[in-house]
Protein backbone atom coordinates (compact mmCIF):
# COMPACT_ATOMS: atom_id res chain seq x y z
CA UNK A 1 0.00 0.00 0.00
CA UNK A 2 1.28 3.38 -0.87
CA UNK A 3 2.27 5.79 1.77
CA UNK A 4 -0.35 8.26 2.71
CA UNK A 5 -3.21 6.11 1.49
CA UNK A 6 -5.61 4.09 3.50
CA UNK A 7 -7.63 1.06 2.58
CA UNK A 8 -11.25 1.87 1.81
CA UNK A 9 -12.47 -1.33 0.20
CA UNK A 10 -11.27 -4.86 0.19
CA UNK A 11 -12.65 -8.29 -0.43
CA UNK A 12 -14.52 -9.55 2.68
CA UNK A 13 -12.66 -12.18 4.70
CA UNK A 14 -15.54 -14.64 4.74
CA UNK A 15 -15.64 -14.69 0.97
CA UNK A 16 -13.06 -17.36 0.27
CA UNK A 17 -10.35 -16.52 -2.18
CA UNK A 18 -11.43 -19.28 -4.55
CA UNK A 19 -12.37 -17.95 -7.97
CA UNK A 20 -16.13 -18.03 -8.39
CA UNK A 21 -17.38 -20.08 -11.32
CA UNK A 22 -19.98 -17.50 -12.31
CA UNK A 23 -19.89 -15.90 -15.72
CA UNK A 24 -18.34 -12.46 -16.01
CA UNK A 25 -20.66 -9.78 -14.68
CA UNK A 26 -23.11 -12.16 -13.07
CA UNK A 27 -24.84 -10.68 -10.03
CA UNK A 28 -24.65 -14.02 -8.25
CA UNK A 29 -21.05 -13.07 -7.51
CA UNK A 30 -22.05 -9.61 -6.35
CA UNK A 31 -24.68 -11.01 -4.06
CA UNK A 32 -22.28 -13.56 -2.57
CA UNK A 33 -19.83 -10.80 -1.92
CA UNK A 34 -22.19 -8.49 -0.12
CA UNK A 35 -23.80 -11.23 1.96
CA UNK A 36 -20.33 -12.09 3.18
CA UNK A 37 -19.58 -8.43 3.81
CA UNK A 38 -22.60 -8.26 6.08
CA UNK A 39 -21.67 -11.51 7.81
CA UNK A 40 -18.21 -10.09 8.38
CA UNK A 41 -19.49 -6.80 9.65
CA UNK A 42 -21.94 -8.45 11.99
CA UNK A 43 -19.29 -10.95 13.07
CA UNK A 44 -21.62 -13.90 12.67
CA UNK A 45 -19.63 -16.24 10.44
CA UNK A 46 -19.49 -18.83 13.21
CA UNK A 47 -23.21 -18.69 13.80
CA UNK A 48 -24.48 -18.73 10.26
CA UNK A 49 -25.57 -21.67 8.15
CA UNK A 50 -26.31 -21.23 4.47
CA UNK A 51 -28.39 -23.40 2.20
CA UNK A 52 -27.51 -23.46 -1.46
CA UNK A 53 -30.02 -24.45 -4.13
CA UNK A 54 -29.71 -26.29 -7.37
CA UNK A 55 -28.99 -23.63 -9.95
CA UNK A 56 -25.90 -21.67 -10.86
CA UNK A 57 -25.45 -20.89 -7.19
CA UNK A 58 -25.36 -24.56 -6.21
CA UNK A 59 -21.67 -24.01 -5.47
CA UNK A 60 -22.26 -21.00 -3.23
CA UNK A 61 -20.76 -23.12 -0.46
CA UNK A 62 -17.42 -23.08 -2.21
CA UNK A 63 -17.08 -19.35 -1.74
CA UNK A 64 -18.52 -18.58 1.65
CA UNK A 65 -16.52 -19.52 4.70
CA UNK A 66 -19.48 -20.63 6.78
CA UNK A 67 -21.28 -23.93 7.32
CA UNK A 68 -23.41 -24.94 4.40
CA UNK A 69 -25.96 -27.46 3.25
CA UNK A 70 -26.70 -28.07 -0.39
CA UNK A 71 -30.42 -28.66 -0.93
CA UNK A 72 -32.33 -30.59 -3.57
CA UNK A 73 -33.78 -28.48 -6.37
CA UNK A 74 -36.55 -26.31 -4.97
CA UNK A 75 -36.28 -27.59 -1.41
CA UNK A 76 -33.93 -25.08 0.16
CA UNK A 77 -36.75 -23.64 2.27
CA UNK A 78 -37.63 -27.07 3.63
CA UNK A 79 -33.98 -27.75 4.40
CA UNK A 80 -33.63 -24.37 6.11
CA UNK A 81 -36.78 -25.07 8.10
CA UNK A 82 -35.16 -28.23 9.41
CA UNK A 83 -31.94 -26.43 10.28
CA UNK A 84 -33.52 -23.43 11.93
CA UNK A 85 -35.97 -25.48 13.97
CA UNK A 86 -33.03 -27.54 15.21
CA UNK A 87 -30.78 -24.56 15.89
CA UNK A 88 -33.10 -21.68 16.67
CA UNK A 89 -30.28 -19.40 17.82
CA UNK A 90 -28.27 -19.54 14.62
CA UNK A 91 -28.60 -17.39 11.53
CA UNK A 92 -29.90 -19.42 8.64
CA UNK A 93 -30.42 -18.36 5.07
CA UNK A 94 -31.33 -19.90 1.76
CA UNK A 95 -29.98 -18.66 -1.51
CA UNK A 96 -32.22 -19.58 -4.43
CA UNK A 97 -32.78 -18.90 -8.07
CA UNK A 98 -36.12 -18.28 -9.72
CA UNK A 99 -36.46 -21.78 -11.09
CA UNK A 100 -35.62 -23.18 -7.72
CA UNK A 101 -37.80 -20.93 -5.60
CA UNK A 102 -40.68 -20.04 -7.89
CA UNK A 103 -41.16 -23.16 -10.01
CA UNK A 104 -40.33 -26.51 -8.44
CA UNK A 105 -40.07 -25.01 -4.95
CA UNK A 106 -43.31 -23.02 -4.96
CA UNK A 107 -44.97 -25.07 -2.24
CA UNK A 108 -41.95 -25.03 0.05
CA UNK A 109 -41.53 -21.28 -0.46
CA UNK A 110 -45.15 -20.40 0.20
CA UNK A 111 -45.43 -22.65 3.22
CA UNK A 112 -42.22 -21.69 4.94
CA UNK A 113 -43.13 -18.05 4.43
CA UNK A 114 -46.60 -18.73 5.73
CA UNK A 115 -45.32 -20.56 8.79
CA UNK A 116 -43.14 -17.56 9.49
CA UNK A 117 -40.02 -19.67 9.61
CA UNK A 118 -37.41 -17.47 11.09
CA UNK A 119 -34.75 -17.53 8.40
CA UNK A 120 -33.78 -15.35 5.47
CA UNK A 121 -34.46 -16.13 1.83
CA UNK A 122 -32.22 -14.56 -0.80
CA UNK A 123 -34.18 -14.94 -4.00
CA UNK A 124 -32.08 -14.27 -7.08
CA UNK A 125 -34.47 -13.57 -9.91
CA UNK A 126 -32.66 -13.52 -13.22
CA UNK A 127 -35.72 -14.47 -15.23
CA UNK A 128 -34.09 -17.59 -16.57
CA UNK A 129 -32.69 -21.00 -15.69
CA UNK A 130 -29.02 -20.09 -15.81
CA UNK A 131 -27.50 -23.37 -14.70
CA UNK A 132 -29.19 -25.63 -17.21
CA UNK A 133 -28.51 -23.41 -20.16
CA UNK A 134 -31.06 -20.69 -20.34
CA UNK A 135 -34.54 -22.19 -20.22
CA UNK A 136 -37.65 -20.21 -19.42
CA UNK A 137 -38.30 -19.51 -15.76
CA UNK A 138 -41.57 -18.67 -14.03
CA UNK A 139 -40.24 -15.11 -13.94
CA UNK A 140 -39.17 -14.84 -17.58
CA UNK A 141 -40.65 -11.65 -19.00
CA UNK A 142 -43.38 -11.56 -21.62
CA UNK A 143 -41.83 -11.94 -25.04
CA UNK A 144 -38.42 -12.82 -23.64
CA UNK A 145 -36.55 -15.39 -25.67
CA UNK A 146 -35.07 -18.36 -23.87
CA UNK A 147 -34.07 -21.81 -25.00
CA UNK A 148 -37.54 -23.15 -24.21
CA UNK A 149 -39.38 -20.05 -25.37
CA UNK A 150 -37.35 -19.56 -28.53
CA UNK A 151 -39.95 -17.27 -30.05
CA UNK A 152 -40.46 -15.28 -26.87
CA UNK A 153 -42.53 -16.09 -23.80
CA UNK A 154 -46.12 -16.42 -24.90
CA UNK A 155 -48.19 -15.55 -21.87
CA UNK A 156 -51.28 -17.10 -23.40
CA UNK A 157 -49.55 -20.43 -23.47
CA UNK A 158 -47.51 -20.37 -20.26
CA UNK A 159 -48.89 -17.50 -18.21
CA UNK A 160 -47.46 -14.25 -16.97
CA UNK A 161 -44.25 -13.95 -14.99
CA UNK A 162 -44.75 -14.47 -11.26
CA UNK A 163 -44.05 -11.65 -8.86
CA UNK A 164 -42.87 -13.54 -5.82
CA UNK A 165 -42.09 -10.64 -3.50
CA UNK A 166 -45.61 -9.33 -3.89
CA UNK A 167 -47.07 -12.79 -3.37
CA UNK A 168 -45.19 -13.74 -0.24
CA UNK A 169 -45.55 -10.32 1.33
CA UNK A 170 -49.27 -11.07 1.62
CA UNK A 171 -48.54 -13.91 4.01
CA UNK A 172 -48.73 -13.10 7.72
CA UNK A 173 -45.61 -15.13 8.45
CA UNK A 174 -43.40 -12.77 6.47
CA UNK A 175 -41.83 -10.05 8.61
CA UNK A 176 -39.81 -8.25 6.02
CA UNK A 177 -39.88 -8.40 2.25
CA UNK A 178 -38.05 -6.18 -0.18
CA UNK A 179 -37.08 -6.26 -3.82
CA UNK A 180 -33.54 -5.12 -4.58
CA UNK A 181 -31.29 -4.79 -7.55
CA UNK A 182 -27.50 -4.81 -7.94
CA UNK A 183 -27.07 -2.82 -11.13
CA UNK A 184 -25.32 0.26 -9.70
CA UNK A 185 -22.89 0.86 -6.88
CA UNK A 186 -25.61 2.79 -5.06
CA UNK A 187 -28.04 -0.09 -5.34
CA UNK A 188 -25.41 -2.54 -4.18
CA UNK A 189 -24.80 -0.41 -1.12
CA UNK A 190 -28.51 -0.22 -0.49
CA UNK A 191 -28.84 -3.97 -0.85
CA UNK A 192 -26.21 -4.48 1.82
CA UNK A 193 -28.30 -2.47 4.23
CA UNK A 194 -31.33 -4.58 3.48
CA UNK A 195 -29.37 -7.77 4.05
CA UNK A 196 -28.24 -6.49 7.39
CA UNK A 197 -31.78 -5.54 8.27
CA UNK A 198 -33.00 -9.01 7.35
CA UNK A 199 -30.45 -10.63 9.62
CA UNK A 200 -31.37 -8.22 12.41
CA UNK A 201 -35.02 -9.13 12.10
CA UNK A 202 -34.10 -12.80 12.02
CA UNK A 203 -32.19 -12.28 15.25
CA UNK A 204 -35.30 -10.79 16.81
CA UNK A 205 -37.28 -13.83 15.74
CA UNK A 206 -39.98 -11.86 14.00
CA UNK A 207 -40.55 -14.24 11.12
CA UNK A 208 -39.52 -14.76 7.56
CA UNK A 209 -37.26 -12.25 5.88
CA UNK A 210 -37.44 -12.38 2.10
CA UNK A 211 -35.17 -10.43 -0.23
CA UNK A 212 -35.80 -10.67 -3.92
CA UNK A 213 -32.86 -9.56 -6.02
CA UNK A 214 -33.57 -8.54 -9.58
CA UNK A 215 -30.56 -10.18 -11.11
CA UNK A 216 -29.02 -10.74 -14.49
CA UNK A 217 -27.74 -13.58 -16.61
CA UNK A 218 -25.52 -12.30 -19.37
CA UNK A 219 -24.97 -15.84 -20.65
CA UNK A 220 -28.60 -16.87 -20.65
CA UNK A 221 -29.73 -13.54 -22.00
CA UNK A 222 -27.02 -13.76 -24.65
CA UNK A 223 -25.67 -10.32 -24.08
CA UNK A 224 -22.63 -8.66 -22.55
CA UNK A 225 -22.54 -7.90 -18.84
CA UNK A 226 -22.91 -4.19 -19.54
CA UNK A 227 -25.84 -4.82 -21.88
CA UNK A 228 -27.42 -6.88 -19.15
CA UNK A 229 -27.54 -3.73 -17.03
CA UNK A 230 -29.77 -2.17 -19.67
CA UNK A 231 -32.10 -5.16 -19.74
CA UNK A 232 -32.34 -5.02 -15.98
CA UNK A 233 -32.98 -1.30 -15.96
CA UNK A 234 -35.34 -1.15 -18.91
CA UNK A 235 -37.27 -4.39 -18.73
CA UNK A 236 -36.87 -6.18 -15.45
CA UNK A 237 -37.46 -3.24 -13.15
CA UNK A 238 -40.58 -2.25 -15.01
CA UNK A 239 -42.21 -5.58 -14.26
CA UNK A 240 -40.49 -6.12 -10.95
CA UNK A 241 -40.71 -2.84 -9.09
CA UNK A 242 -38.17 -2.26 -6.37
CA UNK A 243 -38.96 -1.45 -2.79
CA UNK A 244 -40.03 -2.69 0.58
CA UNK A 245 -43.16 -4.79 0.18
CA UNK A 246 -43.54 -5.44 3.87
CA UNK A 247 -41.78 -4.51 7.06
CA UNK A 248 -43.30 -5.42 10.39
CA UNK A 249 -40.74 -3.28 12.16
CA UNK A 250 -41.84 -0.17 10.27
CA UNK A 251 -44.86 0.42 12.48
CA UNK A 252 -42.76 0.58 15.58
CA UNK A 253 -40.86 3.59 14.25
Amino acid sequence: MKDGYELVYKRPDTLLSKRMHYCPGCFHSTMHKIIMEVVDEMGIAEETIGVSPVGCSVFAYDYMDIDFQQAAHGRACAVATGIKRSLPDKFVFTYQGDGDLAAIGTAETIHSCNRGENFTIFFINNAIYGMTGGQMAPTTLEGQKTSTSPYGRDVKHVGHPLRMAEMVSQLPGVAYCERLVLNTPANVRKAKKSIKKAFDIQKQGLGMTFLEVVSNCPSGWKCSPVQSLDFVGENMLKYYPLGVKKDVTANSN
Partner: protein
Amino acid sequence: MLQEMIFAGFGGQGVLSMGKLLAYAAMKEGKEISWMPSYGPEMRGGTANCMVNISDTPISSPIVQEYDVAVVFNLPSLKKFEPMVKPGGILIWESSTIKEAPTRTDIKVYAVPAIDQATNVIKNTQVMNMLALGSLLKVNPIVKPETLLTALKDTLPERHHKLIPVNEEAIKLGMSLV
Protein backbone atom coordinates in the same frame (compact mmCIF):
# COMPACT_ATOMS: atom_id res chain seq x y z
CA MET B 1 -9.23 -47.01 -39.25
CA LEU B 2 -10.44 -45.13 -36.21
CA GLN B 3 -9.32 -41.62 -35.38
CA GLU B 4 -10.05 -40.33 -31.92
CA MET B 5 -9.85 -36.59 -31.65
CA ILE B 6 -10.39 -33.79 -29.22
CA PHE B 7 -10.93 -30.10 -29.90
CA ALA B 8 -10.61 -27.85 -26.87
CA GLY B 9 -10.47 -24.19 -26.00
CA PHE B 10 -12.34 -21.41 -24.28
CA GLY B 11 -16.08 -21.17 -24.75
CA GLY B 12 -16.70 -18.97 -27.75
CA GLN B 13 -13.65 -20.09 -29.69
CA GLY B 14 -15.70 -22.32 -31.92
CA VAL B 15 -14.27 -25.65 -30.83
CA LEU B 16 -17.64 -27.39 -30.72
CA SER B 17 -18.62 -26.33 -34.21
CA MET B 18 -15.28 -27.24 -35.74
CA GLY B 19 -15.56 -30.74 -34.41
CA LYS B 20 -19.14 -30.97 -35.57
CA LEU B 21 -18.26 -29.81 -39.05
CA LEU B 22 -15.42 -32.26 -39.38
CA ALA B 23 -17.60 -35.15 -38.21
CA TYR B 24 -20.36 -34.17 -40.56
CA ALA B 25 -17.96 -33.93 -43.48
CA ALA B 26 -16.63 -37.37 -42.65
CA MET B 27 -20.16 -38.68 -42.56
CA LYS B 28 -20.69 -37.26 -46.02
CA GLU B 29 -17.67 -39.24 -47.13
CA GLY B 30 -19.30 -42.38 -45.82
CA LYS B 31 -17.47 -42.70 -42.56
CA GLU B 32 -18.85 -43.73 -39.20
CA ILE B 33 -18.72 -40.78 -36.88
CA SER B 34 -19.54 -39.57 -33.42
CA TRP B 35 -19.32 -36.19 -31.80
CA MET B 36 -19.52 -35.69 -28.08
CA PRO B 37 -19.36 -32.33 -26.35
CA SER B 38 -18.33 -31.58 -22.82
CA TYR B 39 -21.52 -30.39 -21.23
CA GLY B 40 -22.88 -28.84 -18.13
CA PRO B 41 -21.89 -26.07 -15.79
CA GLU B 42 -18.18 -26.57 -16.05
CA MET B 43 -18.60 -24.84 -19.41
CA ARG B 44 -19.65 -21.67 -17.61
CA GLY B 45 -16.98 -19.14 -18.49
CA GLY B 46 -14.50 -21.96 -18.62
CA THR B 47 -13.32 -24.28 -21.27
CA ALA B 48 -15.27 -26.25 -23.81
CA ASN B 49 -14.30 -29.32 -25.73
CA CYS B 50 -15.67 -31.98 -27.98
CA MET B 51 -14.53 -35.45 -28.83
CA VAL B 52 -14.84 -36.63 -32.39
CA ASN B 53 -14.48 -40.18 -33.62
CA ILE B 54 -14.16 -40.94 -37.29
CA SER B 55 -13.89 -44.52 -38.38
CA ASP B 56 -14.48 -47.04 -41.08
CA THR B 57 -16.21 -49.35 -38.64
CA PRO B 58 -18.88 -48.69 -36.01
CA ILE B 59 -17.72 -46.56 -33.13
CA SER B 60 -17.78 -47.98 -29.66
CA SER B 61 -17.65 -45.16 -27.17
CA PRO B 62 -18.06 -41.51 -28.08
CA ILE B 63 -16.00 -40.76 -25.00
CA VAL B 64 -12.30 -41.44 -25.33
CA GLN B 65 -9.42 -41.06 -22.97
CA GLU B 66 -6.52 -41.08 -25.43
CA TYR B 67 -6.39 -39.17 -28.62
CA ASP B 68 -4.92 -39.58 -32.06
CA VAL B 69 -5.47 -35.88 -32.56
CA ALA B 70 -5.78 -32.99 -30.15
CA VAL B 71 -6.41 -29.41 -31.24
CA VAL B 72 -6.12 -27.00 -28.32
CA PHE B 73 -6.74 -23.30 -28.19
CA ASN B 74 -5.79 -22.40 -24.65
CA LEU B 75 -3.31 -23.24 -21.97
CA PRO B 76 -5.62 -25.19 -19.64
CA SER B 77 -6.60 -27.41 -22.54
CA LEU B 78 -3.02 -27.88 -23.61
CA LYS B 79 -2.06 -28.89 -20.08
CA LYS B 80 -4.96 -31.23 -19.80
CA PHE B 81 -4.85 -32.94 -23.16
CA GLU B 82 -1.20 -32.99 -24.17
CA PRO B 83 -0.52 -35.96 -21.90
CA MET B 84 -3.48 -37.78 -23.39
CA VAL B 85 -2.29 -37.79 -26.98
CA LYS B 86 -1.28 -41.28 -28.06
CA PRO B 87 2.38 -41.73 -28.91
CA GLY B 88 2.77 -40.83 -32.55
CA GLY B 89 -0.41 -38.76 -32.44
CA ILE B 90 -0.97 -35.20 -33.51
CA LEU B 91 -1.15 -32.10 -31.32
CA ILE B 92 -2.09 -28.78 -32.86
CA TRP B 93 -1.86 -25.80 -30.54
CA GLU B 94 -2.72 -22.14 -30.87
CA SER B 95 0.68 -20.61 -30.64
CA SER B 96 -0.14 -16.91 -30.72
CA THR B 97 -1.89 -16.86 -27.34
CA ILE B 98 -0.64 -19.94 -25.50
CA LYS B 99 2.55 -18.93 -23.87
CA GLU B 100 3.90 -22.31 -22.82
CA ALA B 101 4.84 -24.65 -25.62
CA PRO B 102 4.09 -28.39 -25.49
CA THR B 103 6.96 -30.53 -24.32
CA ARG B 104 6.28 -34.02 -25.61
CA THR B 105 8.60 -35.36 -28.21
CA ASP B 106 6.92 -38.66 -28.98
CA ILE B 107 4.06 -36.98 -30.81
CA LYS B 108 3.76 -34.71 -33.81
CA VAL B 109 3.35 -31.18 -32.55
CA TYR B 110 2.23 -28.30 -34.76
CA ALA B 111 2.20 -24.71 -33.60
CA VAL B 112 -0.51 -22.80 -35.42
CA PRO B 113 -0.90 -19.11 -34.66
CA ALA B 114 -4.55 -19.33 -35.63
CA ILE B 115 -5.79 -16.36 -33.64
CA ASP B 116 -3.09 -14.08 -34.85
CA GLN B 117 -3.50 -15.12 -38.46
CA ALA B 118 -7.27 -14.90 -38.36
CA THR B 119 -7.13 -11.47 -36.77
CA ASN B 120 -4.37 -9.98 -38.78
CA VAL B 121 -4.45 -11.78 -42.10
CA ILE B 122 -8.08 -12.73 -42.63
CA LYS B 123 -9.37 -9.90 -40.42
CA ASN B 124 -12.03 -12.14 -38.97
CA THR B 125 -11.35 -13.70 -35.59
CA GLN B 126 -14.40 -15.97 -35.98
CA VAL B 127 -12.69 -18.19 -38.52
CA MET B 128 -9.70 -19.16 -36.43
CA ASN B 129 -11.24 -22.54 -35.84
CA MET B 130 -11.48 -23.14 -39.60
CA LEU B 131 -7.92 -22.09 -39.91
CA ALA B 132 -6.86 -24.71 -37.40
CA LEU B 133 -9.02 -27.24 -39.17
CA GLY B 134 -7.14 -26.44 -42.36
CA SER B 135 -3.88 -27.14 -40.59
CA LEU B 136 -5.22 -30.39 -39.29
CA LEU B 137 -6.40 -31.56 -42.71
CA LYS B 138 -3.02 -30.77 -44.11
CA VAL B 139 -1.16 -33.02 -41.70
CA ASN B 140 -3.97 -35.55 -41.43
CA PRO B 141 -6.20 -35.63 -44.50
CA ILE B 142 -9.22 -37.11 -42.77
CA VAL B 143 -11.63 -35.58 -45.25
CA LYS B 144 -11.22 -33.66 -48.46
CA PRO B 145 -11.22 -29.90 -47.99
CA GLU B 146 -14.01 -29.72 -50.58
CA THR B 147 -16.19 -31.97 -48.49
CA LEU B 148 -15.62 -29.69 -45.55
CA LEU B 149 -16.87 -26.77 -47.60
CA THR B 150 -19.96 -28.61 -48.83
CA ALA B 151 -20.56 -29.64 -45.25
CA LEU B 152 -20.34 -26.00 -44.29
CA LYS B 153 -22.85 -25.10 -46.96
CA ASP B 154 -25.20 -27.85 -45.74
CA THR B 155 -25.13 -26.75 -42.13
CA LEU B 156 -24.94 -22.97 -42.47
CA PRO B 157 -28.31 -21.24 -42.74
CA GLU B 158 -28.81 -19.76 -46.22
CA ARG B 159 -28.43 -16.21 -44.96
CA HIS B 160 -24.92 -16.94 -43.80
CA HIS B 161 -23.73 -18.49 -47.05
CA LYS B 162 -21.89 -15.30 -47.85
CA LEU B 163 -19.43 -16.37 -45.18
CA ILE B 164 -18.34 -19.43 -47.08
CA PRO B 165 -15.55 -17.74 -49.03
CA VAL B 166 -13.87 -16.39 -45.91
CA ASN B 167 -14.05 -19.83 -44.34
CA GLU B 168 -12.52 -21.32 -47.45
CA GLU B 169 -9.76 -18.76 -47.24
CA ALA B 170 -9.15 -19.68 -43.62
CA ILE B 171 -8.92 -23.36 -44.38
CA LYS B 172 -6.42 -22.69 -47.11
CA LEU B 173 -4.37 -20.40 -44.94
CA GLY B 174 -4.41 -23.02 -42.22
CA MET B 175 -3.16 -25.64 -44.63
CA SER B 176 -0.32 -23.36 -45.63
CA LEU B 177 0.84 -22.84 -42.06
CA VAL B 178 2.00 -26.40 -41.39
